[in-house]
């Protein structure tokens, strides 16, 4: 398994875990309508920023560990196959992101509170990244 493939697998797990936690813990209290819109926005804003910090910190640690486990691969640059696999993942992830963008647009047109747009767009970014990660995982294993 190349450095790029390990990196993708690690980012997939980290993204699923961190944003899984975010959406599961927000589902009842925030999206369930238990809080007024201003409080819901404030609550998700803080948690959203926290998830970014967690993702950055955990991914740095994960990449250091991957590099330590296979030092010879650590400086390996992405080659043409890696770039092709990346582009195919971007294409599939971008399609999912576009669907969520349309959903967010629909919510805005219906006059829903801002925290719902923000979280719909975040869900789109996360879903897009997860689809991209799974696409890359499959392409690396099965071939392109």
């Amino acid at each position, binding site marked *: 398994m190349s450095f790029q493939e390990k990196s993708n697998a690690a980012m997939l797990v980290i993204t699923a875990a961190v944003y899984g936690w975010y959406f599961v813990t927000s589902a009842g209290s925030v999206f369930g309508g238990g809080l007024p819109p201003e409080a819901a926005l404030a609550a998700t804003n803080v948690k959203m920023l926290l998830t970014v910090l967690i993702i950055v910190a955990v991914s740095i640690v994960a990449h250091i560990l991957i590099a330590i486990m296979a030092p010879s691969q650590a400086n390996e640059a992405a*080659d*043409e*196959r*890696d770039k092709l696999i990346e582009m195919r993942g971007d294409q599939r992830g971008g399609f999912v992101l576009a669907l969520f963008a349309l959903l967010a647009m629909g919510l805005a047109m219906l006059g829903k509170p801002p925290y719902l747009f923000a979280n719909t767009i975040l869900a789109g970014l996360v879903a897009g990244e997860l689809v991209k990660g799974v696409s890359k995982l499959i392409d690396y294993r099965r*071939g392109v």
Partner: protein
Amino acid sequence: MAKPTPITNRIRALRFDAGEMTQAELAEKIGVTRQTVIAIEQGRYSPSLEVAFKMARVFGVGLEEVFQYPQSAG
């Protein structure tokens, strides 16, 4: 499953003839990762023309001695 490429290759035999060159050595010479050489050898990835020419040059043979495209493939 990704559609298998009709392109076949003789990379493994050519590596053997070239003093049992390893996949890692070939990868380094043509500027790709070892995993990409493995994928090309197994027919899971068709390389760019540039990589294909580099590979042929490493073995000192023509392109069609490395890669073959069957007549029936259209």
